[in-house]
């Protein structure tokens, strides 16, 4: 009997610590494509993570996260959204690129992943940021400066949030580091590097902040891009993939001054999440009816992501608060 209980305990432990790798391959994009939120979906769900995205149709510009399989490792400039590796981790096709257009970006965990530690993820530089740090551009400096001795750095700081509380610890990952006394040790990351996040503890979202030594009155000069692949979260290896139903959620008025009226036709209970443009969760509400009003009165003007999620489906929209 003792033996059977031991087996049961081990089985439970294995189940509890099961890991799910989010590798973005299910997007199956045509070659050299970037999914930049042009469909106004407000972000991308892959496995049990949600990557917020704000796409401005008028400006034809995106910020937050995008899914891509582009491979250009030679063209400098902002038009290139590739990773400097030219592929995802381990030669895979798809990965995600983050543009830190809102001072920080967030990654939202859902399902079984939420409330557990994130094991880690692979991170590398975008081609844009890499070549800018290597050669300089019209705005940003070549790292090391004219002598090569400038103690430049490009730092990604990751923190966890759980129930609105920020983790005490943070993980610092240097995408480039020129602070060494011996310049031969200076580096700019050009391969996928595993970043262990278990020290952050339980999380329902992760925040990503970029800082650089090359900063002026108008902010950071180094292009605020980095790339992520193979995010390992808590969950089953074969998880239930949520179905994105763009027509599920209806919001009006949009733009709005004070309130939004949500309506949906889902047959399951839905939770409503409101994120700011950087993906920070601002409001969570369980929807008891198919149509409910939510107040945005207390929020400043700007773009917000409203996301409905149930057990099987999700839908997100960008709302403009005037």
């Amino acid at each position: 009997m003792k033996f059977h209980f031991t087996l049961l305990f081990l089985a439970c432990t294995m189940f509890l610590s099961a890991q799910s790798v989010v590798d973005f391959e299910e997007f199956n994009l045509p070659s050299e494509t970037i999914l930049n939120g042009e469909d106004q979906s407000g972000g991308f769900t892959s496995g049990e993570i949600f990557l917020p995205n704000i796409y401005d149709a008028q400006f034809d510009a995106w910020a937050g996260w995008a899914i891509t399989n582009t491979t250009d490792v030679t063209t400098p400039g902002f038009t290139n959204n590739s990773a400097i590796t030219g592929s995802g981790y381990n030669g895979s096709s798809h990965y995600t690129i983050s543009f830190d257009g809102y001072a920080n970006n967030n990654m939202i965990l859902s399902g079984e992943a939420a409330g557990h530690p994130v094991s880690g993820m692979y991170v590398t530089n975008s081609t844009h940021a890499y070549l800018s740090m290597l050669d300089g551009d019209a705005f940003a400096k070549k790292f090391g400066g004219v002598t090569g001795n400038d103690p430049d750095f490009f730092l990604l700081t990751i923190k966890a949030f759980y129930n609105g509380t920020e983790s005490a610890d943070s993980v610092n990952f240097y995408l480039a580091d020129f602070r060494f006394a011996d310049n031969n040790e200076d580096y700019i990351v050009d391969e996928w590097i595993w970043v262990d996040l278990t020290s952050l503890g339980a999380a329902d979202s992760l925040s990503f902040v970029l800082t650089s030594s090359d900063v002026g009155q108008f902010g950071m000069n180094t292009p605020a891009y980095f790339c992520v692949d193979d995010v390992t979260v808590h969950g089953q290896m074969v998880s239930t993939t949520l179905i994105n139903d763009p027509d599920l959620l209806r919001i009006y008025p949009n733009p709005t001054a004070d309130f939004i009226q949500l309506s949906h036709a889902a047959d399951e209970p839905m939770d409503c999440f409101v994120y700011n443009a950087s993906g920070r969760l601002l409001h969570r509400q369980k929807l008891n009816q198919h149509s409910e009003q939510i107040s945005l009165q207390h929020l400043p003007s700007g773009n917000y992501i409203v996301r409905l999620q149930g057990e099987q489906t999700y839908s997100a929209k960008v709302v403009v608060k005037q």
Partner: protein
Amino acid sequence: MIKTKPTLALLILLSAFFGIVSANVIAQSAPVDTTVMLPSVEVNAHQTRQSVVGSMSSEWQTTLLQKLPTHNLADLLQTQAGTYIKTYGLGSLATSSVRGGSAGHTLVLWNGLPVQNPMLGLLDLALLPVQSAESISFTKGGNGAMWGSGAIGGVIEMRNEADFSQKLNVTSSTEFGSFGYFKQQLKLGLGNEKLQSVTRFSFLQADNDFYYFLADGLPERQQTNARISQQFLSQDLYWKINPRNQLDFHLWWEQSDRQIPPTKVQTRSEAHQDDLITRLLLEYKYIGDAWLWRVKAGYFDEHIDYYDDLILLESPNHFQTILGEITGQWFHKKHEFLFGSTHTHTRAMSAGYRDQTPEEYKTALFASWKYTGGKWNTQISIRQEMVDGTVVPTVPSFGFDWYFAPSLILKGKVSRNYRLPTLNDRYWIPGGNPDLLPESGWSEELTIEQKSKERAFQLNVSLTAFNRKIDNWILWSIPEGQSYWSSNNITRVWSRGLEPRLAVTYKPKNIALHWRFGYDYIRSTNEVAVQHPNIAVGDQLIYTPVHQAFGAFTVDWKNLHVMYQHNFTGETEGINETIDAYHVGNVRIQYSGTLSQLKGTMFLNINNIWDADYVVIERRPMPGIYFQTGLNLFFNVNP
């Protein structure tokens, strides 16, 4: 609201300075004209519009411009007027900051029409060759009542006027210099007492591949991708139909291809900018006994195309402007009345505007009354402009010159001025803001000036104090809750300062010595804190040095002309770092000879003679010592 305390403080300083200077220089003895004579209706008309009453003004004529080691308006203003010029390098984009204003606060006029780029609100002063005009004037201070938007820090006017006494004159100028510099200019003047034609052509090219210092122990680095090539053609036609009627035509055509070099912390650059400028102006003048009417029609077409082959960026920009203007002047004894109306229509195309083709309609009415008395000259002006159907602030001005003692003049001016948002400010995607208000504010200035002459000595000393506040200052920023940079009326800028000037000329028999000195103390501070960009209350504007000084010493002896110029620019803040103060000295040696109707001039310019290592814009290197030499030939056949 006019603040009185700072103005009073400046007045006290002004009085103290003048007391010291006047006690130590030549005592005035020779009488100075206390009545401003009006040499001709035409000149007077210019003065009224230029509104020099109460302001300090400088003017350079062709003969003087030919003696100066200056190629374009940026060089001229920097070396001759001590103006702070923000230049990205030799021949590169150059803009001015006058009295602590932005680049868009200096208005440039070509024969009385504003030639600012309406998309950027400024003009690249490196694209204005000084030889393109018969005369260039620079009036500091607000002049919005006469000239409208942008005339806040100062007004530069390039003029072309007919000389109906000319028959034939030909000028050729060939110059060579360091870094592959070559310039060829030709000017042909032809005509009689009825018709005059002046044609100018110039070609300039330079590799600008100078070596510059990086750091101790490192080899010098050679500048790359810095080549410039410019062609300029102008045609002026004047037809004196009869003594009362005259028709003028002016053409300005210019093509400029400039590579944009890498910064000191950039490995390479493949960026370049191509400009193609066409300006046409037709002017009709009626000169009556007491009336002068002018009717002008202008057409400007400019392409400013920016390319960066490295990042696969193409940014073509194009605008067309049509201008119409009518002014009338009535002269009655010591009074002069001017009134006019100007209409402008601009249409602009840019990748930054996406599918929009912004158009702007501007209409303005203005009037001025000028009184020229024995001891007092006064001028009151007012302007009302309407932009796309919206009325902008009414801008009045009042100026006076008071000849309160022999050789002593007190000048003062109070004016309201404004700058309209540019088309980029309004329509650029992302960030353009169609609801922007014009920047506007009041300016005050007071000058005390002493002009005296005794035998071979001539002295001119002055001190100007100014004060200006501009509200609704337009800044590209990230407001709370917004995720991208956009143009906003978010700050207020207070500019104030002192401008002492001293000029001494000593002319005994065969030699003329001339010494000029000027110093600018300018505080130009933000009065509203901004988060993005990071600006605190009281911060001096970036690229606005508090201290600047310039001096020049000239010797003319027989056919020899030698000049030494020195400019000091104090420490200033850039976007990323502090820019150190620097001194730059230039020398020109010129020898002139005459053979019958042919006059020749040879010259040698030694620029940055002290081989100063400096930057004007952070990370943008400037050359050390370099040379230019050339030969100018003038052939003149006149009655």
